[in-house]
């Protein structure tokens, strides 16, 4: 979050001020990259660049709050994903070299009871295993920090549908991570 200086930062960035643009970029690039890592892992960095370029070009026309700006960035990103999928369908590219494909933790890793320090990458890979619509909604809520109404607008669904999808996503994640895990830290609750 940028906070009270957001308006000034936005105006300066729209005028091409690198200093100000850097503030916007630092604030949203990690979340944008993580979102794209879930929905289009093979090309997440390319699509993040495409998203930012479109944002840069439209910046002077943007009017709104910081929350609105976040929403807008995460509206542009899925469009870039859709465009990429269309391009892919028309001209499939050769499979990426292995290092470009994010490593997915095996079930043994993810189900490790000692989950104290799960990495962001591994956690994103787990989210990416959810059905795509659930994964997208959960990521937009948690990573992008958007509320139900914002996510509903972005994915073109009603708020109720977004709630159900994210709820199912959480449930599925809990199933995936093992419902049979041992006593919790809260004092021996064993279902």
């Amino acid at each position, binding site marked *: 979050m*940028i*906070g009270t*200086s957001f*308006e*000034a*930062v936005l*105006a*300066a*960035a*729209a*005028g*091409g*001020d*690198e*200093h*100000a*643009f*850097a*503030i916007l*970029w*630092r604030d949203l*690039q*990690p979340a944008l*990259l993580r979102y794209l890592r879930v929905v289009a892992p093979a090309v997440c*960095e390319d699509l993040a*660049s*495409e998203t*930012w*370029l479109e*944002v*840069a*070009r*439209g*910046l*002077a*026309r943007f009017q709104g709050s910081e929350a609105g700006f976040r929403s807008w960035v995460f509206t542009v990103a899925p469009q870039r994903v859709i465009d990429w999928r269309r391009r892919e369908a028309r001209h499939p590219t050769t499979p990426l070299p292995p290092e470009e494909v994010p490593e997915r933790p095996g079930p043994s890793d993810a189900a490790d009871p000692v*989950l104290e320090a*799960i990495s*962001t990458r*591994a*956690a994103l890979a787990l*989210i990416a295993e959810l059905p795509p619509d659930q994964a997208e909604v959960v990521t937009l*809520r*948690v990573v992008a920090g958007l*509320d139900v109404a914002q996510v509903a607008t972005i994915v073109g669904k009603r708020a109720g549908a977004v*709630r*159900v999808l994210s709820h*199912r996503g*959480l*449930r599925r*994640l*809990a199933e995936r*991570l*093992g*419902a049979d895990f041992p006593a*919790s*830290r*809260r004092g021996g*609750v064993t*279902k």
Partner: protein
Amino acid sequence: MRDGDGLHDEMRYPRPQPGFRFDPLALDEGTAERMLAGGLDPADAPPAYMRTAMVLEAIAAPPSSDELADEAATVATLAAAARSFPHPAARRRPTVLTKLLTAKMAAAAAIAALSVGGVAAAATGTLPDSAQRVAHQVLGAAGVPAPDDHGDAAADASKAGRSATGPDATGAAKDGLCRAWQAGQGGEQGGKNDSTAFKALAAAAGGSDKVADYCKDVSANSGKGDAANSGAPPSTVPEQAQGRGADPGAGSGQSHAPTSVDPGDGHGQGQAPPSTRIDPRD
């Protein structure tokens, strides 16, 4: 019920099912919302959702350095792209000329980014990935073929602008052109000096032999050659006053011809004194 189709019921009535004591994964809507909004510590999550909460915590963790890699070059290119698309109220319907000029501006910025990257490349043997990617996309958007290496960028830019007069080397493009020119010093100057972009630079300098002198104050102003540090701090002055005048066609109600600006001001910053200092590390 097990396939999740009755989720609404599950959400409202986490009641025992025949043959089961409880649905261990029952999750009320309030708790779900707190997990999704990031307000639930894993230790406070329902036992069956503790790991889920930890995963959610991990995907919302503070950024790592690799997620913010190549910031300077990436931001420089994006800020240049923002400059090329000023507020519609401040710009007329684009003509062929302004489109070309805008494309040239983007190309000039990309040359600058690639040249700055080229210095890093010389040191590390590799161009920063995202700088290359963004520059490639800017060049592509300007109708310029993707350069195979930064050495061809100037030549490619001149190809794209065959019918153009080149960027306004006295104005906003001065910095980028000068840096691109300086980056080529001692290298293969021949082809670069023939390009439209560098011809414009030579014209602004008053002759190709005067480019070095002309660009001296740019490097002096840029301090250590870091473009990110050269700009005045952002201010809260109204956007009309905020230095869009350096962009061709961006002047309020002015003609599409490149606006001539004070040669001393190559940064596109406004004349108004900055009223708010914004610390990027806030």
